[in-house]
């Protein structure tokens, strides 16, 4: 079996952003379902949170290939 341990590390580190994205959208869907008119307020916050969580996942991806 060949391969690099970097990718195993990336797989482990991707768990965090994955859970974060799930939590963000769970909260967003909950909020919009309870109060549909709050959508325009919640949407930018949810997108920004998604961007921040996703940034960490992409950092991990890039560093797994670079290091």
């Amino acid at each position, binding site marked *: 079996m060949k391969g690099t341990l970097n990718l195993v590390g990336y797989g482990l580190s991707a768990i965090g952003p994955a859970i974060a994205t799930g939590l963000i959208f769970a909260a967003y869907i909950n909020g919009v379902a309870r109060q549909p008119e709050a959508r325009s307020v919640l*949407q930018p916050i949810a997108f920004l949170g998604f*961007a921040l969580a*996703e*940034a960490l996942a992409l950092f991990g991806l890039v560093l797994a290939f670079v290091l």
Partner: protein
Amino acid sequence: MASNEEGALWSILGYLISGLLIWGGIGYGLDRWLDPHHHWFMLVGFLLGMGASIYLVWLRFGRE
């Protein structure tokens, strides 16, 4: 904007990836040119690119 949330999410991902690639690539080029043994410029490039992409995402989608 409410009807195309999926599209917004994919374009956010696109912005983040291209920010990393562009500024990380510039940093990588500087490293190859100036100091081939260390990767400081690339590290700075990644951080700068990620910061710029998140700023861009805030500009496009965050402010109402």
